[in-house]
């Protein structure tokens, strides 16, 4: 292969390319270093102060939020307590006789309802029994 092809590459570069390349590389390095230049003390302090101020602001906001919401939470709590108290008080004030009367009244009403509901059924049963009796009589006759 070496006999057929010399080792010359078919590439060329612009004139003076290798003379200028080190300078261009140095320029790129300088540009990169400017971008990554270490921050001055004041810049560092400034960013730290900004972070601290942000944190303090957030803390203040949560503090204010908590104290503004506290009365509402307290009201809710009071209502709950009152409700429990009212119920317990009502239970203690409730008279046994009243309870007995209420139960009796309820029973009466319920039994009346039951009776009203039962009437058609009973009438039907009774009438069917009569039929049965008549039938039985018929059977006896012959």
């Amino acid at each position, binding site marked *: *292969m070496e006999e*057929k*092809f*010399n*080792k*010359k*590459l*078919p*590439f*060329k*570069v*612009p004139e003076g*390319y*290798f003379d200028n*390349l*080190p300078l*261009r*590389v*140095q320029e*790129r*390095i300088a540009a*990169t270093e400017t971008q990554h230049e270490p921050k001055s003390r004041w810049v560092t302090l400034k960013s730290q102060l900004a972070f601290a101020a942000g944190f303090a602001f957030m803390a203040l906001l949560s503090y204010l939020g908590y104290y503004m919401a506290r009365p509402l939470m307290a009201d809710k709590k009071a209502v709950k307590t009152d409700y429990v108290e009212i119920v317990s008080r009502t239970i203690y004030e409730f008279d046994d006789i009243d309870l007995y009367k209420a139960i009796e009244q309820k029973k009466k009403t319920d039994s009346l309802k039951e009776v009203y509901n039962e009437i058609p059924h009973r009438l039907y049963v009774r009438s069917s029994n009569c039929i049965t009796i008549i039938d039985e009589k018929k059977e006896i006759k012959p």
Partner: protein
Amino acid sequence: MDNHTDSELLVMFRNPETKHYAFNLLVRKYQERLYWQVRKIVISHDDADDVIQNTFLKVWGGLENFREDSQLFTWLYRIATNEALTFLKKKRTKLLLPIVDVEQQLARTLEGDPFIDGDSTALKLQKALLKLPEKQRLVFNMKYFEEMKYEEISEILGTSVGALKASFHHAVKKIEKFLEED
């Protein structure tokens, strides 16, 4: 100016007062060899220029931590090769091209780039090289054009000498076949 040894350059580089000067000497010493290695991979001069500048930027950033376990040139060569391969990979991803299309694009660059010499035999060989798989092309370039030892190539590419020999052998066979068919 280029007579400084690598060790001298490294000592000068570690001194903040001579750091920039030492780096300038280093660039001057190795720029051409690294450029041609990169150029053979990316073909276009403009792309090679981008890659070589990025290579030296990386060298600038990493030279402080260079431990001299390997030769400086091997280390530089490895960075340049990786940068060139990464460049092609990015090009592939950016244009959503499969490998074959990138090689075709590189072949078109061979015909259209203003910084391509008109030597027809050399061009023919480069076109044949572009038909090889990337690794084989790399090995062929380093062995045939750079006349590097397999041990050096192995250190740069991180591949065993046996595998490199096999790659080079396959590359030569394929190129011969391409050229016969052409």
